[in-house]
């Protein structure tokens, strides 16, 4: 028995380790997912504070599918999600409403707050989405820059903003407040990282964000 004891202990640890791996993988994949890839967890979007008002949206408020993204302009996976959401907007048109919420990860990303401010300042001149696209499409050019202000001012010029007003607005209280209100909503909805996407109030697991999987989820919501 004593000769076999170490083998028994080793096998026991192996079983526990493999078991823990499968349990953790399953719960991380989606603890509350049903077979369609939706979360069956109760919706948290209505109970949470509303965030900045009015929100930045694409598509009509009456759209049957409402997608809400918490994003950080300096986060590379958010940059990868950007063209996918553009494609979804083009494909689904009036059936899909996309809302962008600011969730700059400070201090993880040194320029995230400046980028969020630039987008909000552009929003005050009615060009949030133009700046949003510029920031994501040129993420690599400003990500490692020491001073991003001249780069963002150049973006402002390119999208036709009043640059003097943009430079004033970027440090304004209203811009800071909007970012803060979106952050409060995100924290209330248990957002831990970016991108975090909710569809009709339910969080979509990160591995369901590739284009083909997201399309299936949206189509399933439309079929309801």
């Amino acid at each position, binding site marked *: 028995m004593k000769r076999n004891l170490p083998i028994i202990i080793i096998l026991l*640890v*192996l079983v526990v380790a493999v078991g823990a791996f499968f349990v953790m993988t399953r719960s991380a994949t989606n603890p509350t997912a049903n077979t369609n890839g939706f979360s069956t967890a109760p919706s948290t979007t209505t109970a949470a504070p509303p965030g900045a008002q009015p929100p930045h949206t694409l598509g009509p408020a009456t759209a049957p599918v409402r997608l809400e993204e918490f994003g*950080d302009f300096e*986060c590379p*996976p958010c940059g990868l999600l950007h063209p996918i959401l553009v494609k979804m907007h083009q494909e689904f048109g009036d059936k899909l409403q996309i809302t962008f919420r600011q969730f700059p990860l400070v201090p*993880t990303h040194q320029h995230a707050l400046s980028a969020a401010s630039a987008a909000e300042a552009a929003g005050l001149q009615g060009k949030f989405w133009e700046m949003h696209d510029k920031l994501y499409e040129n993420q690599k050019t400003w990500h490692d820059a020491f001073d991003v202000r001249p780069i963002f001012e150049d973006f402002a010029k390119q999208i036709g903003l009043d640059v003097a007003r943009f430079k004033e607005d970027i440090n304004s209280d209203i811009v800071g407040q909007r970012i803060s209100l979106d952050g409060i909503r995100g924290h209330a909805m248990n957002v831990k990282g970016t991108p975090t996407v909710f569809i009709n109030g339910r969080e979509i697991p990160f591995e369901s964000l590739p284009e083909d999987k997201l399309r299936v989820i949206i189509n399933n919501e439309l079929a309801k």
Partner: protein
Amino acid sequence: MSRDEASRVAPQSKQTSLLPSGSWWYAAAAVVSLLGLADAIYLTVEHITGESVRCTIIAGCSEVLSSPYAVVGGVPLALIGAVAYFSVFSLATLTVFGYKGTRGLLTILVAVMFLVSLWLIYLQAFVIHSFCQYCLFSAGITAFLTVIVFLARRKSAVVK
């Protein structure tokens, strides 16, 4: 109990010692390796589910775990780490129970893991320019294991 009685009991208790001399070090190595195993399993799950790719408030891990260095020949480095820690646990346990040949293998394995850890810290510091706290924890565990195993070998050499 008189002094004579006590002196008769003392050698007896030495004979019934649970483990041979120096084995406690290897038992400690087995326990410490379980911490490394738990850390490596967590990192493997994060890698496989894609959660490590998401940006989080805790800096560094997404950059490190989504870098090309996090995968070796298509296999997540964290999974290789989990196998290594499990091997350390197995070899340390077998050594505790007096199996022959496992002590040398354990020393070689821990030395290799220590060197790999140094290389990974170099990559985080000078190539990726980000540190992942779970990877640093693993490096700390490996360094601790290295100290334990080499102390155990030294103790065994002194006993001989």
